[in-house]
Protein backbone atom coordinates (compact mmCIF):
# COMPACT_ATOMS: atom_id res chain seq x y z
CA UNK A 1 0.00 0.00 0.00
CA UNK A 2 1.28 3.43 -0.93
CA UNK A 3 2.31 5.36 2.15
CA UNK A 4 3.75 8.79 2.74
CA UNK A 5 7.20 9.25 4.28
CA UNK A 6 9.32 12.29 4.91
CA UNK A 7 13.04 12.70 5.20
CA UNK A 8 15.91 15.02 4.65
CA UNK A 9 19.53 15.93 5.06
CA UNK A 10 21.10 16.40 8.49
CA UNK A 11 21.12 20.17 8.90
CA UNK A 12 17.42 20.30 8.00
CA UNK A 13 17.62 22.54 4.95
CA UNK A 14 16.70 19.82 2.45
CA UNK A 15 13.38 18.12 3.14
CA UNK A 16 11.37 15.77 0.95
CA UNK A 17 8.16 13.77 1.02
CA UNK A 18 7.60 10.56 -0.93
CA UNK A 19 4.83 8.12 -1.59
CA UNK A 20 6.04 4.56 -1.83
CA UNK A 21 4.85 1.04 -1.13
CA UNK A 22 7.69 -0.39 0.94
CA UNK A 23 6.26 -3.92 0.70
CA UNK A 24 6.48 -3.78 -3.09
CA UNK A 25 9.69 -1.77 -3.34
CA UNK A 26 12.70 -3.67 -2.04
CA UNK A 27 15.61 -1.57 -0.84
CA UNK A 28 18.82 -2.18 -2.74
CA UNK A 29 22.51 -1.47 -2.54
CA UNK A 30 25.10 -1.08 -5.28
CA UNK A 31 28.81 -1.81 -5.32
CA UNK A 32 29.83 0.86 -7.83
CA UNK A 33 32.51 3.40 -7.01
CA UNK A 34 30.19 6.13 -5.82
CA UNK A 35 27.48 4.09 -4.09
CA UNK A 36 30.22 2.39 -2.07
CA UNK A 37 31.46 5.73 -0.78
CA UNK A 38 27.98 7.20 -0.29
CA UNK A 39 26.67 4.10 1.52
CA UNK A 40 23.34 4.81 -0.10
CA UNK A 41 20.43 2.44 0.47
CA UNK A 42 18.37 2.81 -2.69
CA UNK A 43 14.63 3.17 -2.60
CA UNK A 44 13.34 3.78 -6.12
CA UNK A 45 10.59 6.40 -6.25
CA UNK A 46 8.73 7.71 -9.30
CA UNK A 47 9.36 11.35 -10.13
CA UNK A 48 5.77 12.40 -9.44
CA UNK A 49 5.87 10.69 -6.05
CA UNK A 50 8.72 12.75 -4.67
CA UNK A 51 8.15 16.30 -3.57
CA UNK A 52 11.02 18.52 -2.50
CA UNK A 53 9.53 20.41 0.45
CA UNK A 54 12.50 22.70 0.98
CA UNK A 55 16.13 23.18 0.11
CA UNK A 56 16.16 22.64 -3.65
CA UNK A 57 18.54 25.61 -3.87
CA UNK A 58 20.83 24.10 -1.23
CA UNK A 59 21.63 21.06 -3.36
CA UNK A 60 24.89 20.65 -5.22
CA UNK A 61 24.89 18.24 -8.16
CA UNK A 62 27.93 16.09 -8.85
CA UNK A 63 28.26 14.22 -12.13
CA UNK A 64 30.97 12.02 -13.63
CA UNK A 65 31.56 9.49 -16.37
CA UNK A 66 28.44 9.53 -18.62
CA UNK A 67 27.03 12.49 -16.67
CA UNK A 68 23.57 10.93 -16.67
CA UNK A 69 23.24 10.37 -12.95
CA UNK A 70 22.67 13.51 -10.91
CA UNK A 71 24.29 12.97 -7.53
CA UNK A 72 22.70 15.65 -5.41
CA UNK A 73 23.79 16.50 -1.88
CA UNK A 74 23.20 19.28 0.63
CA UNK A 75 26.08 21.70 0.29
CA UNK A 76 25.91 22.56 4.00
CA UNK A 77 25.97 19.13 5.65
CA UNK A 78 26.98 16.89 2.76
CA UNK A 79 24.08 14.46 3.05
CA UNK A 80 22.71 12.68 0.00
CA UNK A 81 18.95 12.29 0.64
CA UNK A 82 18.02 11.41 -2.96
CA UNK A 83 19.41 11.49 -6.47
CA UNK A 84 18.56 10.68 -10.08
CA UNK A 85 20.26 7.42 -11.00
CA UNK A 86 21.89 6.56 -14.29
CA UNK A 87 19.78 3.41 -14.48
CA UNK A 88 16.52 5.41 -14.31
CA UNK A 89 17.34 9.11 -14.69
CA UNK A 90 13.72 10.25 -15.07
CA UNK A 91 12.98 9.12 -11.55
CA UNK A 92 14.59 9.20 -8.13
CA UNK A 93 16.48 6.94 -5.88
CA UNK A 94 15.81 7.96 -2.30
CA UNK A 95 18.41 7.17 0.32
CA UNK A 96 16.50 5.11 2.92
CA UNK A 97 19.07 6.24 5.51
CA UNK A 98 17.70 9.76 5.19
CA UNK A 99 14.06 8.87 5.95
CA UNK A 100 12.87 10.26 9.29
CA UNK A 101 11.69 6.80 10.29
CA UNK A 102 14.62 4.85 8.89
CA UNK A 103 14.82 1.55 10.73
CA UNK A 104 18.06 -0.37 10.11
CA UNK A 105 16.42 -3.61 11.21
CA UNK A 106 13.54 -3.59 8.76
CA UNK A 107 15.02 -1.42 5.99
CA UNK A 108 17.91 -3.64 5.06
CA UNK A 109 19.19 -4.08 1.54
CA UNK A 110 17.40 -6.94 -0.15
CA UNK A 111 19.22 -6.93 -3.44
CA UNK A 112 22.54 -5.95 -4.92
CA UNK A 113 23.07 -4.03 -8.15
CA UNK A 114 26.60 -4.84 -9.25
CA UNK A 115 27.24 -1.38 -10.57
CA UNK A 116 30.99 -1.95 -10.62
CA UNK A 117 30.20 -3.70 -13.93
CA UNK A 118 27.41 -1.33 -14.77
CA UNK A 119 26.40 -2.42 -18.29
CA UNK A 120 26.15 -6.08 -17.26
CA UNK A 121 24.23 -5.22 -14.11
CA UNK A 122 21.86 -2.96 -16.01
CA UNK A 123 21.13 -5.66 -18.60
CA UNK A 124 20.51 -8.23 -15.88
CA UNK A 125 18.40 -6.19 -13.51
CA UNK A 126 14.78 -7.03 -12.98
CA UNK A 127 12.04 -4.71 -14.06
CA UNK A 128 11.40 -4.04 -10.37
CA UNK A 129 14.49 -1.88 -10.26
CA UNK A 130 12.65 0.77 -12.18
CA UNK A 131 10.39 2.98 -10.12
CA UNK A 132 6.78 1.87 -10.12
CA UNK A 133 4.82 4.33 -12.24
Amino acid at each position, binding site marked *: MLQTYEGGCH*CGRVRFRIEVDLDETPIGECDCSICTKKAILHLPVARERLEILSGADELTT*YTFNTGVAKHTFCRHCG*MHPFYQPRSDPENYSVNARCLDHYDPETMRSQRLFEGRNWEEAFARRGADWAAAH
Partner: protein
Amino acid sequence: MLETREGGCHCGRVRFRAKVDLDRLSQCDCSICTKKGILHLVTDPADFELLKGKDALTAYTFQTGVAQHTFCRHCGMHAFYIPRSQPHKITVNARCLDGIDGPSLKPARFFGGRNWEEAQAKRLAEEHQDPPDTMGGRAGALTLQAILDRCPE
Protein backbone atom coordinates in the same frame (compact mmCIF):
# COMPACT_ATOMS: atom_id res chain seq x y z
CA MET B 1 46.17 -5.83 11.62
CA LEU B 2 47.49 -2.33 10.97
CA GLU B 3 48.08 -1.64 7.31
CA THR B 4 48.84 1.46 5.28
CA ARG B 5 46.06 2.29 2.84
CA GLU B 6 45.17 5.18 0.60
CA GLY B 7 41.77 6.53 -0.16
CA GLY B 8 39.78 9.61 -0.99
CA CYS B 9 36.59 11.22 -2.15
CA HIS B 10 35.00 10.34 -5.48
CA CYS B 11 36.09 13.19 -7.74
CA GLY B 12 39.70 12.71 -6.70
CA ARG B 13 40.36 16.12 -5.17
CA VAL B 14 40.67 14.76 -1.61
CA ARG B 15 43.27 12.04 -1.07
CA PHE B 16 44.71 10.59 2.12
CA ARG B 17 47.06 7.88 3.33
CA ALA B 18 46.51 6.25 6.72
CA LYS B 19 47.42 3.30 8.89
CA VAL B 20 44.16 1.51 9.59
CA ASP B 21 43.05 -1.74 11.18
CA LEU B 22 40.10 -3.17 9.25
CA ASP B 23 39.50 -5.69 12.06
CA ARG B 24 38.38 -2.76 14.22
CA LEU B 25 35.72 -1.52 11.82
CA SER B 26 33.00 0.25 13.76
CA GLN B 27 29.48 1.48 13.16
CA CYS B 28 27.43 4.12 15.01
CA ASP B 29 23.67 4.68 15.14
CA CYS B 30 23.62 8.43 15.83
CA SER B 31 21.68 10.83 13.62
CA ILE B 32 24.54 11.78 11.34
CA CYS B 33 26.39 8.47 11.12
CA THR B 34 23.10 6.86 10.12
CA LYS B 35 22.63 9.24 7.21
CA LYS B 36 26.28 9.07 6.17
CA GLY B 37 26.42 5.28 6.45
CA ILE B 38 30.01 5.74 7.54
CA LEU B 39 32.13 2.78 8.63
CA HIS B 40 34.66 4.05 11.14
CA LEU B 41 38.36 3.34 11.37
CA VAL B 42 39.97 5.43 14.09
CA THR B 43 43.54 6.52 13.39
CA ASP B 44 46.13 8.53 15.21
CA PRO B 45 47.07 11.91 13.63
CA ALA B 46 50.64 10.61 13.34
CA ASP B 47 49.29 7.80 11.14
CA PHE B 48 47.16 10.01 8.91
CA GLU B 49 48.33 12.17 6.05
CA LEU B 50 46.11 14.36 3.92
CA LEU B 51 47.85 14.16 0.56
CA LYS B 52 45.70 16.74 -1.17
CA GLY B 53 42.38 18.50 -1.04
CA LYS B 54 42.59 21.12 1.69
CA ASP B 55 40.75 23.64 -0.49
CA ALA B 56 38.13 21.09 -1.52
CA LEU B 57 37.15 20.19 2.03
CA THR B 58 34.41 21.84 4.00
CA ALA B 59 33.35 20.97 7.56
CA TYR B 60 29.84 20.66 8.92
CA THR B 61 29.31 20.96 12.67
CA PHE B 62 26.25 20.78 14.91
CA GLN B 63 25.25 20.53 18.56
CA THR B 64 28.46 20.64 20.65
CA GLY B 65 30.47 21.60 17.57
CA VAL B 66 33.33 19.31 18.61
CA ALA B 67 33.06 16.84 15.72
CA GLN B 68 34.24 18.15 12.36
CA HIS B 69 32.22 16.43 9.66
CA THR B 70 34.40 17.10 6.66
CA PHE B 71 33.33 16.39 3.11
CA CYS B 72 34.43 17.26 -0.40
CA ARG B 73 32.43 20.26 -1.55
CA HIS B 74 32.59 19.01 -5.16
CA CYS B 75 31.37 15.41 -4.85
CA GLY B 76 29.98 15.33 -1.30
CA MET B 77 32.02 12.36 -0.07
CA HIS B 78 32.94 12.01 3.59
CA ALA B 79 36.35 10.38 3.36
CA PHE B 80 37.33 11.10 6.98
CA TYR B 81 36.26 13.28 9.88
CA ILE B 82 37.17 14.28 13.43
CA PRO B 83 34.86 12.52 15.88
CA ARG B 84 33.34 14.03 19.01
CA SER B 85 34.22 10.92 21.02
CA GLN B 86 37.94 11.21 20.22
CA PRO B 87 38.54 14.75 18.95
CA HIS B 88 42.31 14.31 18.97
CA LYS B 89 42.04 11.48 16.45
CA ILE B 90 40.83 11.03 12.90
CA THR B 91 38.15 8.64 11.74
CA VAL B 92 38.70 7.28 8.27
CA ASN B 93 35.58 6.16 6.39
CA ALA B 94 36.42 2.59 5.33
CA ARG B 95 34.06 3.03 2.38
CA CYS B 96 36.45 5.59 0.94
CA LEU B 97 39.54 3.35 0.96
CA ASP B 98 40.84 2.41 -2.48
CA GLY B 99 39.92 -1.08 -3.63
CA ILE B 100 37.30 -1.70 -0.96
CA ASP B 101 34.18 -3.82 -1.52
CA GLY B 102 31.38 -1.96 0.26
CA PRO B 103 28.73 -4.69 0.59
CA SER B 104 31.24 -7.10 2.18
CA LEU B 105 32.36 -4.69 4.92
CA LYS B 106 31.12 -6.03 8.25
CA PRO B 107 31.65 -3.85 11.32
CA ALA B 108 33.03 -5.70 14.34
CA ARG B 109 32.28 -2.93 16.79
CA PHE B 110 29.31 -0.75 17.60
CA PHE B 111 29.00 2.70 19.18
CA GLY B 112 25.45 3.49 20.35
CA GLY B 113 25.75 7.16 19.50
CA ARG B 114 21.99 7.70 19.61
CA ASN B 115 22.57 7.70 23.38
CA TRP B 116 25.91 9.39 23.09
CA GLU B 117 26.94 9.97 26.72
CA GLU B 118 26.16 6.37 27.61
CA ALA B 119 28.04 5.04 24.58
CA GLN B 120 31.04 7.21 25.31
CA ALA B 121 31.18 6.09 28.96
CA LYS B 122 31.03 2.45 27.85
CA ARG B 123 33.78 2.95 25.26
CA LEU B 124 36.07 4.79 27.69
CA ALA B 125 35.69 1.96 30.23
CA GLU B 126 36.37 -0.73 27.63
CA GLU B 127 39.41 1.04 26.25
CA HIS B 128 40.69 2.19 29.67
CA GLN B 129 40.72 5.82 28.56
CA ASP B 130 40.05 9.08 30.35
CA PRO B 131 37.52 11.46 28.79
CA PRO B 132 39.23 13.52 26.09
CA ASP B 133 40.11 17.16 26.73
CA THR B 134 37.76 19.00 24.38
CA MET B 135 39.81 22.18 24.87
CA GLY B 136 36.72 24.25 25.42
CA GLY B 137 35.00 22.59 22.48
CA ARG B 138 37.81 23.45 20.05
CA ALA B 139 39.69 20.14 20.06
CA GLY B 140 38.12 18.79 16.88
CA ALA B 141 38.65 22.01 14.97
CA LEU B 142 42.29 22.14 16.10
CA THR B 143 42.91 18.53 15.02
CA LEU B 144 41.42 19.30 11.61
CA GLN B 145 43.43 22.49 11.26
CA ALA B 146 46.66 20.60 12.00
CA ILE B 147 45.84 18.10 9.23
CA LEU B 148 45.08 20.90 6.77
CA ASP B 149 48.24 22.78 7.73
CA ARG B 150 50.37 19.74 6.92
CA CYS B 151 48.67 19.17 3.57
CA PRO B 152 50.83 20.24 0.62
CA GLU B 153 47.95 21.19 -1.71
